[in-house]
């Protein structure tokens, strides 16, 4: 272990991180000293209460999600995915979408898992269908939806149906129309992405830089020793926690700002216009970037909007939002994300509207 000389400390990112951490904590206590002046300002009171509320509410779900994501990373053997999926796209896409029910995580855990599926040889359209469906139809999200909409079990069913429908349609469209170059590139990137676990870290964290042609050795088997698996588990969970947690907090800040600074009258005005309300909540879902476990509670806080437009919010949110697009761009490439996101947005909105007119 190298001791940090002054010159090295300036260059060393870890030392810089430690200094930054200390500064943040010191600033916290400084903030405490001026708290009296701050807390008399009503907007500060309101914003901070709502911000902390969303963070605290969503955090246990996020921890659950990254825990299961870590288990999947550590325990699923190589080759299992290919053996389980049907060969044709027509069948593998719906199968993979429905398989999403087993992954109780927010969309942040489904992205690295889907990346690993593609890297293991699963067909891209199936992996993408899984990526879209898993955050919306897993048990944790469905339970959260039922809790947030007490007395309305049809919302849970509608969310399930609309989300699976949208995931399957996107998967089929991708199988039919996506160019091989795009898929091959996505394959290369996800293979290069590696595990993020135990010593083979090859982090590509959503900043879009290109690793074309840089095949990372991906032929290694899972380390089957207990220590290896535990290490993979914690590394994957920590990785997902840092990514998803950061974006969750960002979404919480946006939600708090929305509730604090936008007079409810503005929302009420839009709420009454059927088509405008749908567009508004679809846009809100994209901008709000809250994890799927928490978005049901946000939707529940907008009772002035129709159930249809709120279903649109619930179906669009886990599939395309600003943090998710960033994660997808980082994992699969910017060109991929630019095509994938708008396609998903349109399909998800239409699927939700169609399902709402049938079930709600």
């Amino acid at each position, binding site marked *: *272990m190298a001791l*940090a000389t002054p010159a090295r400390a300036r260059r060393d*990112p*870890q030392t810089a*991180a*430690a200094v930054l*951490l200390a500064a*943040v904590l010191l600033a*916290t*206590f400084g*903030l*405490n000293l001026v*708290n009296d002046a*701050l*807390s008399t300002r009503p907007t*500060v*009171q309101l914003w*901070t*209460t*709502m*911000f*902390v*509320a*969303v*963070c*605290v*509410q969503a*955090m*246990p779900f996020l921890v659950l999600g990254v*825990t299961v994501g870590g288990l999947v990373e550590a325990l699923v053997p190589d080759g299992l995915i290919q053996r389980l999926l049907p060969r044709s796209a027509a069948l593998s896409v719906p199968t993979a979408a429905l398989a999403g029910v087993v992954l109780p995580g927010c969309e942040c855990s489904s992205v690295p898992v889907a990346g690993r599926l593609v890297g293991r040889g699963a067909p891209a359209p199936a992996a993408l269908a899984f990526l879209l469906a898993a955050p919306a139809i897993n048990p944790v999200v469905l339970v959260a939806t039922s*809790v*947030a*909409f*007490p007395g309305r079990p049809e919302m849970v069913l509608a969310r399930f149906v609309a989300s699976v429908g949208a995931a399957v349609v996107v998967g089929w469209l991708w199988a039919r129309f996506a160019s091989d170059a795009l898929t091959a590139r996505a394959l290369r990137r996800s293979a290069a992405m590696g595990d*993020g*676990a135990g*010593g083979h870290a*090859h*982090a590509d*964290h*959503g900043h879009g830089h290109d690793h074309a042609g840089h095949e990372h050795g991906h032929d290694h088997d899972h380390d089957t020793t207990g220590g290896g698996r535990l290490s993979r588990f*914690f590394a994957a*969970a*920590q990785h997902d*926690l*840092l*990514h998803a*947690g*950061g*974006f969750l*907090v*960002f979404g919480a*800040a946006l939600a708090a700002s929305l509730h604090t600074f936008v*007079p409810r009258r503005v929302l*009420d005005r839009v709420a009454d216009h059927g088509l405008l309300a749908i567009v508004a909540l679809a846009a809100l879902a994209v901008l709000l970037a809250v994890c799927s476990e928490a978005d*049901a*509670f946000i939707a*529940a*806080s907008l009772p*002035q909007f129709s159930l249809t437009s709120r279903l649109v919010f619930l179906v669009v949110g886990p599939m395309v939002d600003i943090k998710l697009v960033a994660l997808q761009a980082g994992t699969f490439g910017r060109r991929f994300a630019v095509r994938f996101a708008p396609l998903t947005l349109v399909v998800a909105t239409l699927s939700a509207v169609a399902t709402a007119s049938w079930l709600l």
Partner: protein
Amino acid sequence: MRPRSSLDRVVAAAFPLLIGGLLLRLVVTGHYRNFVKASMWPWLTLSGFALLAAAAWELASSRATGAGHRPRVAWLLLAPVVVVLGVAPTSLGAVALERTSARATRVYEDGSWAKLPADGVPIAMTIGEFVERTYAGDTVTGVPVRLTGFVVPDDPGTGTFRVVRFRIACCAADAAPVAVQVVSGAAEVPPADTWVTITGELVPDDPAVLDPRFAATAVEVVEQPVSPYEAIVLPE
């Protein structure tokens, strides 16, 4: 990759440690009820300990090399810690009401609510249920009730004030207010955000009024209830 220093471990461990510590601290002090439902404590406790376990692993892990750079967005994870430690937010009160013109009421049909016993003994209920009952039928007309909420004075000089509660489906971010307006029976208007239990009856009125008018026979200052927020009560 250069070898992983103990400083790396500390920094990496700090993130789950601080978040887990925050969750556990909020449960232990009871402050979590300012933000989420009181029933959330098992979830918060469990995930708090899970995060501490992750932090412990980071410190103890024998990985020889660093695990790749931390994404810049991860620093946001510290924001809730900073806010709670620095600003110590409280539950929503009179100030929050100013920002909301709408009230949190669903529309039930007349007859949805069960009749109440009419033996003259005041019945304790949530403000939400009381308001819902006034909107859907006349099940509370002539029935003495006991309600608990915090005071929001009306314009000075009118002598009236509202008793308000926030209802939440899940957390404070979806909180929406319900209120009654006390129009008689109070010697003086208590200060804003005072928690009171009022006993009295509905003043039968034009149903279009936003907050049902209430004639109090008793206004008692009380401690803030264990949970400042009301749960949503549905008709049977």
